[in-house]
């Protein structure tokens, strides 16, 4: 058993890649409420990492810690070898962490195109002065970024809604636009908070395909929270399971599925 078999998705190879982000002994409290207690895990370069757990397990809080919306009281986050106790959202974004939200957070009044363009904010460097003039370098820059955004729109197959204000779009499409905005940041780490919540089967399949494509084509590392177990087991390379803010299991989908604690957490256990 020394030569481990390499399976089709390359799980084992990737699971051995270098660590992109690791969370070390994170604890987060809101007053007396413990949202997360002493949780550690890592995310390796190029993998799809799922975070699962029953409602209120602290999954979204975990993502919020990673991208700087919350500051954990204890513990540290190491991202690309850089160790920090505190993270600021725009610093996280600049470092290459993009995310989507559980309840879509889009700029409702703006068009799909403009929404995705905001994802390029950090990539656009030309100063206030040129911006105000809308000429010269700022104009060329705008055109170059517009090209990238058009590619993303093609990739997500949302050409037909480019100019529509996103507030009017159906929920499934809004989720897709939100993914597009995150992709426009060309992130190294993409955090997806329930990307398939509230979708029908067909939309779910589309979204799964996009997530796999992003992972394969751009090599983007993805951490996702999802409730649909079928999706989690199919997509992810490794799964971490939280319950009541504590980590109860961590491993490949098959390992996690067989774990007694996980089964108890999901099915309940007789006391």
């Amino acid at each position, binding site marked *: 058993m020394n030569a481990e078999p390499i399976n089709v998705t390359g799980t084992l190879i990737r699971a051995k890649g270098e660590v992109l982000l690791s969370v070390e002994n994170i604890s987060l409290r809101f007053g007396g409420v413990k949202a997360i207690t002493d949780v550690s895990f890592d995310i390796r370069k190029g993998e799809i990492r799922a975070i699962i757990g029953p409602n209120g397990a602290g999954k979204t809080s975990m993502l919020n810690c990673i*991208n700087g*919306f919350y500051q954990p009281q204890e513990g540290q986050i190491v991202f690309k070898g850089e160790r920090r106790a505190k993270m600021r*959202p*725009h610093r*996280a*974004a*600049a470092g290459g962490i*993009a*995310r989507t*939200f559980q309840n879509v*957070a*889009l*700029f*409702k*009044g*703006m068009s799909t195109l*403009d929404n995705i*363009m*905001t*994802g*390029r*904010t*950090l990539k*656009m460097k*030309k100063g*206030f002065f040129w*911006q*105000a003039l*809308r000429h010269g370098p*700022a104009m060329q820059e*705008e055109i170059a970024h517009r090209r990238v955004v058009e590619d993303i729109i093609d990739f997500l197959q949302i050409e037909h809604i480019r100019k529509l204000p996103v507030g009017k779009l159906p929920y499934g499409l809004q989720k897709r636009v939100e993914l597009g*905005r*995150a992709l*426009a*940041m060309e992130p190294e780490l993409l955090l997806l908070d329930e990307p398939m919540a509230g979708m029908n089967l067909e939309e779910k399949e589309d979204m799964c395909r996009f997530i796999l494509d992003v992972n394969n084509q751009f090599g983007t590392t993805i951490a996702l929270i999802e409730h649909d177990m079928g999706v989690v087991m199919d997509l992810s390379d490794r799964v971490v399971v939280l319950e009541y803010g504590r980590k109860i299991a961590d491993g490949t989908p098959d390992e996690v599925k067989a774990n007694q604690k996980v089964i108890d957490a999901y099915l309940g256990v007789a006391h």
Partner: protein
Amino acid sequence: MSDIATRPAPSLLASPLVKFGLIVAAIVVALAIGVRLDTSNTLYAIFVDPFQQMVQAPDLLVQTVWEGLVSGVLYALIALGFVLIFKASGVFNFAQGIMVVFAALTLVGLYEKGVPAFLAVIITLGVMFALAVTIERVVLRPLVNQPDIILFMATFGITYFLIGFGEALFGGNPKQMIAEQLYLPKGAVDLQILGGLVSLQKIDIAAALIASLMIAALAAFFQYTRIGRALRAVADSHKAALSVGISLNQIWVIVWFTAGIVALITGIMWGARSDVSFALEIVALKALPVLILGGFTSIPGAIVGGLIIGIGEKLGEFYWGPLVGGGIESWLAYFIALGFLLFRPQGLFGDKIIERI
């Protein structure tokens, strides 16, 4: 044949023309009866006489509308400052009025201290930038995530600080705006129209032009640039804006600085028409009814609202003012705003207020 007979006769009221005609007829009849009963001529003085005057002396009407238009443009500018800040940070900036005074005062004060006029403008812009940075650091950043009312109260604090600071630096006496040194035109253009003489102050023409240019420039900036997009993004959702790496702090500085530039231009224009003193602040409060009319979140709303209030109050003062002894200009704007609050609380262009239950 039989089926025509059973078909209901088309309602006359279905035609909008007929409906309109009926309404006009009803008004005419009501007026006719009213005039008969109107022994003290009150109704005549309110509903007939002003319009007769307008028709008889159209030149006076044009003159009045023009004056209303000019003050309307300036109201719109002040309201624009409010809208910019409200949109981007959700703060109702009570200090916008005093920022107008402070900017104008700084400009004139610097000039009096011997700084050349255009250099003074640049330095004043620098001061407004420093003010924006300071407000962001000292007031907004510590109060992040506090309820709106607390931020609103904080802007009261800014107001009184600026009054005191401005007075301490430049004294409390009214000052003359340095219009001539800034090459703003003086004098008036007399137009021979409609059988009368209409006199347009050149400074008013300049004010209207500059204000329109600035509004157009701001609109383009908001629509087409990265920073403009970021501003709109912040206005829409703080959390999503943060997630794409927009720095709220930077945006706030930009917004307050932009409001400062708008304040300076407003201050120059208004100061050139009267003089620069803290009394201007009262005028700045007129932006409130403008905002109620136009909606707190709409730039076009601020402009249209400003024009309606400006023209409305001048017409009201000129034609209806004498009925109650004049002086209605100072409160008519608030009265119009009150009417709007009753029927369209979100304003003409504001976002519709939808409350989820």
